[in-house]
């Protein structure tokens, strides 16, 4: 059975859900990038 994809989810919820994981990951990446000069200093 192929379910017709009628959105049952508010798109804002999907955006928030992705931000929930992307923001901490972005924080980790940012913290890594600003440490790179120290790594080679």
């Amino acid at each position, binding site marked *: *059975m*192929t*379910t*017709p*994809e*009628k*959105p*049952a*989810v508010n798109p804002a*919820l*999907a955006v928030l*859900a*992705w931000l*929930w*994981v992307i923001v*901490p*990951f972005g*924080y*980790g*990446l940012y*913290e*890594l990038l600003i*440490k*790179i000069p*120290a*790594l*080679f*200093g």
Partner: protein
Amino acid sequence: MPAGFLARERIVAPPGWSRWLIPPAALSIHLAIGQAYAWTAFKTALTSTMLNGNPNAGVLSALPFQLAIVMLGLSAALFGTQVDARGPRWAMVVSSSCFVAGFLISALGVSIGAYWLVVLGYGFVGGIGLGIGYISPVSTLIKWFPDRPGLSTGIAIMGFGGGALIATPLTNQLLAAFGGAVKGGSASPVASTFLVMGIIYAVFMSVGWLLIRVPAEGWRPAGWDPATQTAGAMISTKNVSAANAIRTPQFWLLWVVLCFNVTAGIGILERAQDIYTDFFGAGVSPAGIAAAAGGFAAMLSLANSLGRILWSSASDPLGRKRIYMIYLGVGAVLYLAITLLGNSNKVVFLICSIFILSFYGAGFATAPAYLRDLFGTYQVGAIHGRLLTAWSVAGVLGPLIVNALADANKGIAGPGRYTTAFTIMIVLLVIGFVANALIRPVNAKFHEPDTTTVTPEGAQA
């Protein structure tokens, strides 16, 4: 009677539910439990405070991490069936509860000076959370993305590898905010950091179990035809049961391959900050070397994370056996380069370390596909659960080798402190390389009859 909050029936997605909500749910769990790879930050803090002056500080400070990895493998193998039966929300709640409890118990242990509570809390209780959390979202993702299983599981597996990217700076910043882990000073900042991180992870992981849904029976993505996937994928035509698989030499050869590949990576990963400090700490201010060592640990976790998706993707065109030869063979050469060059060239040291850790992550990510190639898709999940015991052994072996030898060579300054440990790693990688070279197709006597139903339960890593 209505289904309970944790029951599988309660989280069957209504028509039109977006499957793109499932990856962030899975990542909420995997990005959290991936914190295990950032243990090195706590290890350094504990060695400076609670374990300061203890001649076995290196080995003792590795114990919580080692036990956590042992429990990860054991609980993944033991509770895999329960996770499938009870559903991902149950699994995620159990995982979150155990993982968070591990931090809270550790906070208590540090604050009252009972180190055994840190081992019990973070290692035993938290480790169960790691194992159940590790397998719970991945199998759900496969059901939601039958058309893109590699992409979906790759996201989660990357999340586990990338958890330390968040946890390393978070731990170090919290420690600094609470007064810092000063050598010989109070352990109170360490206790506070454990406590706050436990609370943060409780909130962060809650989105995972709130958001997770399972697809309704018979659901499939719009426009996707299962027949096209079967025709295009590299799927073994013969199947081997889990009971028979562990009777084959192939299973045990692969067990050795995974165990030694993981041992080689985990030895560096678990002691990353200390290794960097020992290699490049001479003549650098404590603050400067601490910052650089933190960056080194974070960079390794990024390599671990990216290696999972990049190298395992490359294994499709290259073949599983060939790619493991690269992981093990090139890994041994890189370890040799680090051992011989020492701290004479920082760029070479960093490049070698990054590749070693990318091979480490890739070893995990490629294992389910290797199992599927050898044993087919019938019960590959159960076989994989048994294979993860290699991770448990490696979780003890790697840190034990590096820390015990580093403790024993405390009088040796600089890279020389690790020469023996790294030489052992090279030998282990060569043994793994040989074991991989010996792997041949499974003898037909182990094959299931052709009528066996093939279920797509693979790739639970």
